[in-house]
């Protein structure tokens, strides 16, 4: 059922302006080449849901003015410091921020995965994270007594966008231990995948490979993007480009520097 596209741009067609787009955390395989393609296309007003955190991907999309609403638990460049465009956008009030906490985002996607309207979660009560989330509701546990608990509405993304090491010709995608990628695909209406390689042998025919495989049944489009997570790493395949990320942190510290980065590494790079 998945459609293999010759260009990443074509694979990204389902991501329109205003799309509720869910993307994974840095260690789970971030589709950076696809992210640059979205910026080149000039996608607008994204509701970006980073499960449960983000780094360069969110910072780039925010700096490029592709994001209207950001929903996540944290954005940071890790050892390379704070995420400069994220911080600037928040202090300037140019994006709508929906602060969350990691397990709440996992649970809200699992609710959509299971076709239920909400999931309960412990914790949260008494925090300002809850205070600023009118969509999260405290109820008295109907199976308990004087036991307040938070209910999180299910989140059904329009599109899940992921990058993985390997797919087969049937569109099955090997995601290994990154099980949240499976939950994202189950929860989202459509799933777009970029992969490093495509193999002929069906991943589901090998019980060992099958255990870490997202069935093509859930996948809408697939495109090949070699080193598609660069400059971030892809677990078990390649590690991040520390020099480049340090350069990004340096350039993105100012808006002008960020725009130079965009021109050089997102726009011109494509033209070249």
């Amino acid at each position: 059922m998945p459609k293999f596209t010759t260009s990443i741009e074509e694979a990204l067609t389902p991501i329109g302006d205003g799309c509720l787009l869910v993307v994974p955390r840095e260690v789970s395989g971030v589709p950076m080449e696809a992210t640059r393609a979205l910026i080149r296309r000039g996608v607008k007003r994204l509701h970006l849901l980073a499960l449960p955190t983000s780094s360069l991907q969110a910072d780039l999309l925010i700096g490029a003015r592709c994001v209207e609403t950001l929903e996540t638990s944290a954005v940071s460049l890790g050892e390379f410091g704070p995420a400069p465009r994220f911080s600037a956008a928040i202090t300037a009030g140019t994006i709508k921020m929906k602060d969350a906490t990691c397990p709440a985002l996992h649970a809200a996607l699992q609710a959509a995965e299971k076709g239920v309207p909400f999931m309960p979660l412990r914790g949260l009560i008494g925090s300002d994270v809850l205070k600023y989330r009118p969509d999260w509701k405290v109820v008295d546990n109907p199976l308990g007594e004087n036991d307040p608990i938070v209910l999180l509405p299910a989140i059904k993304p329009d599109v899940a966008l992921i990058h993985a090491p390997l797919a087969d010709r049937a569109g099955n995608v090997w995601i290994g231990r990154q099980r949240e990628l499976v939950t994202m695909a189950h929860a989202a209406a459509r799933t777009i995948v970029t992969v490093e390689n495509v193999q002929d042998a069906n991943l589901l025919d090998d019980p060992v490979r099958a255990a870490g495989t997202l069935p093509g049944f859930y996948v809408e489009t697939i495109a090949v993007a070699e080193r598609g997570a660069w400059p971030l790493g892809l677990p078990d395949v390649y590690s991040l480009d520390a020099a480049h990320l340090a350069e990004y942190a340096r350039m993105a510290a100012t808006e002008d520097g960020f725009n130079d980065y965009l021109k050089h590494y997102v726009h011109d790079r494509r033209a070249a």
Partner: protein
Amino acid sequence: MTAAPPDVRDEELLADVIARLIGDSRHVAVGNASPIPATAALLAREQGNGSPYVSLLGSRAHTFWTDGGRELFDCAGQGRIDVFFLSGGQIDGQGNINLVSIGDYAHPKVRFPGSFGSAYLYYVVPKVILFRTEHSRRTLVPKVDFISAPGGNDPNVFRNGGPIALVTNRCLFSFDRAKRRFRLQSVHPGHTVDEVIEHTAFDFDRPDNVPETQLPSPDTLELMRERVAPQLAEVYPAFAAKVFGIRKSA
């Protein structure tokens, strides 16, 4: 902080303090970019002959996760994580931590990365150790601007975890969950109670005579340097070189 005895490094002192707080636990999880808590957890494991089980979330080699990003939180919800570490851009006298922003939330002056899992883990991990090396009126405030996770809750709120202590570069505070107040337990060698009071913007309890933080024993130092440092080097090479490598070559 430079006044610990010349043969004990500050990092070693702090790791020893934290290892004693870990005490007898089954599973200690340490977040990313936390070399001193990682040193403490590995030290506790050496002292406990393999117990507690240690997960270093930064590293793939030192974690067992195979169920995706939710597994850490599910594991904590199952009661299978006994000790975790949290910090904050601000920490206040009621044990509230702020990982979000300074100033009005709607128009902050400073934005931090975000709350991560704190708004959940602070409630369900029995022993949360607050660790913030910078001990100043900027970080230890009377009231945080944003509560990423509160130090305590009303008694009817489900909560089987929370802060047990706050470790800084100057001292060790314990946390009294009933009173929701910190209590000064000991001051690190080379520091004074007056200095702690001067640099702490929240009220805290203290005994009439505040003891000095106990130095790591020679056995502990040997364990840290000979057994822990090599394991640490795998995840925190720069730290291991700076703190332990140099001494080794000395």
